[in-house]
């Protein structure tokens, strides 16, 4: 609902189109460039990446370039694709169809500790499914 009217913000559109520059958030599957993650963090998983410190290492840990397929969702709440991918309640933007990598244990624990329970999508679930 609240995202219905939110257009994809400019920061969420991947600035690079070449596939090897893109990274997917390992929590929600949002796809942006590495630098976008560093500067703006993940727009869904707030608190996952602290944008106040440009922590590139952190970005490298919680995002991955190992993902397959790409979906750009313009109106998540209206889109069946978004629903199927379970991103209908997330911000409009590019999402991976499947993320091939799972968060390392320590990050999972850390998120749990912080209570940063952020929505898992079908894309990121896939990572756990096939591991």
């Amino acid at each position: 609902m609240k995202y219905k009217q939110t257009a994809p913000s400019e920061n969420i559109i991947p600035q690079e189109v070449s596939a090897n520059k893109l990274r997917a958030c390992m929590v929600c599957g949002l796809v942006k460039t590495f630098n976008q993650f560093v500067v703006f963090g993940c727009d869904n998983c707030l608190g996952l990446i602290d944008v106040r410190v440009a922590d590139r290492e952190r970005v490298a840990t919680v995002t991955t370039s190992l993902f397959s397929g790409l979906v750009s969702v313009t109106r998540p709440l209206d889109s069946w694709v978004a629903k199927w991918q379970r991103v209908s309640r997330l911000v409009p933007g590019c999402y991976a169809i499947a993320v091939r990598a799972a968060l390392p244990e320590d990050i999972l624990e850390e998120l749990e500790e912080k209570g940063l329970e952020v929505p898992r999508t079908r894309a990121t679930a896939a990572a756990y499914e096939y591991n």
Partner: protein
Amino acid sequence: MDKRKRDTLIEHEEQTELKRQKNQQDGERGSETSQDDEQSEERQDEEEKEYDDDDDDDEDSIEEEEEEESRKEYQSKKKRKSSRFIELEAEVDEEDDEEEAEEGDEIERELIDDEETEEVEDTMASVQQRKALLDRMRSENPEELRRFVRERYGEVDEEEEEEEEEESQGPQKEYIKDRGIEQQGLLPTVQDPKLFLVKCRIGREKEAVICLLQKYYEYYQKGTPLDFFSAVAPEHLRGYVYIEAYTADSVRKAIDGLRILFPNTLKLIPIEEMVDVLSIVPETSQIERGGWVRISRGTYAGDLAQVYDFREGETNVTVRLIPRLDLQEVRNEDETDKKRLSINRRPPQKLFKREEVEQIVGSEVFPRRDRYTGEVFDVFRNENYRDGLLYKRVSIRNIVTGDEVAPTFEELEMFHKAQRLASHTKHDEDNTQELEDTMEKTLELSLETLSSDVEKNMNFCVGDSVIVVSGDLKNLSGRIEAMESDNMVAVRPDDPELKGELIQFSKEELKKYFREGTHVKAINGRHTGETGMVVGISGDIITVFSDVTNEEVRLHISQLTETTEEGSSKSAIGSFELLDLVTLHSDPRARGVIVRIQRDHATLLDTNGANRTVPVKDIRSKLDGKRAQALDMNQKPLQVGDMVKVVQGVHKNREGSIRHVASPFVFMNVKDEPQNCGLIVVRAHNCQGPHSVHGNYIVGAPNNMKGATLSSMFSLGGNRIKTDSKLNSTVYSGNIGKGHKEDDKLVRQDVLIKSGPWKGYIGKVVSATTASVRVELDSVCKTVTVDRSRVVPKDTAHLEKQKQPLQGAYTPSYEMGSQTPAYSGMGSMATPLHHVGYTPVYAPFTPTLDSGRRDVPRTPIHNAWRPTTPGAADYSTGNKWSDLGLSMYSPFASQETVMGASKVTQTENKTIDESVDDTKVDHSVSVAKAWIDALVQHKTNATVRGYVGGHSPDGMFLQLELEDGSSGSYALSDMQLVTPDKSDTIKVVDGEYMGMKGQLLNAEGDEGIVQFEDGEIKILPVSNLGKIRG
């Protein structure tokens, strides 16, 4: 209480509350903003409590029940005040109270309608929410953060919430399972938008999807949003993307203007296929430590590699593989950065050896700790090496995994070889060791398992010893007697009891076996045709000591057969013979010498010094190198048969004769080379050819050098110099090829550049032509071409400088006959002095000269000069005499006269000095001086005849003691010398020996033979002689 139930319950109550709240809010909307602060504060408190509760829930469900009442209260309060955006959902939920979980689609649809009305409110809520959240972020309190995140994402629809909690509690598997079932609920319905397939430029699918999002954003900004919901680029589908929209028209609008999409190809996807579009193909990672992969790109394309390090989620993998390093090339690159020879050629696989690299490339290889892994590697040109293998990070996109890899025995054997070489070096770090051990184990395992695979196409030959590996007769050994059919062989058992009968086996039941000491022959693989003795057996791997190479090779049993053949020392194959220089079809630029011939393969020693085994078919042609030439370090041509010495590089100090020339390389026969038929390959410019020996002689003889240099510069053409040049040319003539001039004497000389842009630089001549020389500068890393006349040899450079200002002065002395002998004695120092050696210089030295001339040959005198070289310089610069000498005495003979007179009479220099401005007087004086004591007669009146006793100060008149005893004064111009006769006592009045006295031994025409007082005999012009009293 079951968690799910509990949540449903809560939801329920919330919803009723919310419904109420919404109505209330509609009324309150005006005062909403003013209440905000208060609300958020309250919310905080409430939530904190709620969270505490939640935590407790997980631990204790009884407690939870007790507290249920209070929680309900909190929840409802919270919803009422804060969760504005949840309202709609709540409202909808109210409609189908109990079934919300199953009917997700419907809810969504309902929502769409409702949302339109709530648009303004939602936006406001969203803005507020975000603002508040940012505030929280800044406050850096995890508790608060958590609350906010929860607030934002907590109120997801039931199934998701549930999943999340389950995930945090239970094992992940369970979560996944549940998920799979729930996914069913999301299947598309007729109300959902449709998917349209659109053709796309191949490889640009993801780009298209991103562009569509960008386009949507731009149109949204303009206020005319596009009517599509998503765009999909599945990984496995090339050349297509899907666009989600209600109508094809919307799709057309969306893709309009995007050149990478083709609107004509629009196609609607049936609803039942929609899910397939988003199917996730399980992609089990086949990359594991120690596993085998193949590189698919770059230099190592097709090469087998072993996974050394791989972490889940990374796109790069560290593999280890056999390096393909072309050390020669690396070295050349270092030396001349410009030209890269043969870029496309792939160097052969070769294990990395630190010593070898250091030797060839020259740079040292140090062990270094890797920046990321902390492991220690030998780093060479930014690549990590250890134990002969290259450790390389490659993208997983560039490797092939799975069954396609199929490592062959020979490939594995390379790794094993590296392992064996490394076995003695232990790694100090435990984790490294562990990793290496893993590598080793997998390698061994691979070698073993491989065996079983290879067995299937085991090449049996008649006569092979075999052992039965399966069936009733297991472990029976025998010998193959005959090949029955494709798959059957007849075996005669070794067992004496069974000896009589042939037993048939299928090939699968048999395995070759060898005993130590058996003579075997390789029937396939790299070593095909080689024979040797079995010296070790481990499983299916046989160590064979080769007859030909005297090396141990590990071969698989399938590669071997028993033989009685001894060696395979074939010396010819087809039209090619051992030690032929050949080129290849596959690599026409390669040059190699055949050093070993196997059945249908030949091993070449190529120009990189590496061995290359090629099929005979690949050998293109034999090269006749008889006339080929390569230039050695002195730019002298080398030919087949020349004896040369290697002066730099790996083979430094080795000597041998040239077998083949493949410019810029030469193949040399070296006595002490054990491999490759005694051949080594070296760059020609690292060699010193036979003529260079003489070259050194010349370099070591500065005199000659000097003479030649000066002769070219000043055209000084003394006899002696001519002789020298002749000498030089005879030295060279034997060895210098056509077109090479003596000019090359300058080559390798240190020279100074006298003029031009590089004036003052010192360097070494690298090559020379008649007109110019190439000089490698010492101070600047540069080689420049300068005019030949602009360089002088460095060791004469200082003299050269001094010579410059005096250059004009050489003319008078030039014709001095006296100089020729002086040359030889004076050596290198003479040259410059020549040019200062005119009158004025002589004058101060008169006493020395005098005595010297009379007693001893000139050499001592000249020697005495040598240390005075600086002094000479003084004369040239400070003494006015120099001017005098230059300007006044152009008729040289008269100058000599003066000098002679000064010597004899000890006339003061002043005399000359005073009369410098009168050439005629000066001339008379010098003549008059020279004539003293000589017998003269009147030119017309022969009776006036007498000895010269003196002269007037101006030299115009001579005082004669006439023969009649009287004396008189006569004008000099009227008098002439009386030509002396044989055996007369004479005095030299002109020329080099002016002033000397002696006896005329004989006279023939103009020439007279004179014996001086010191016994020396000279031939002088009679006109220069005056008769004196005996």
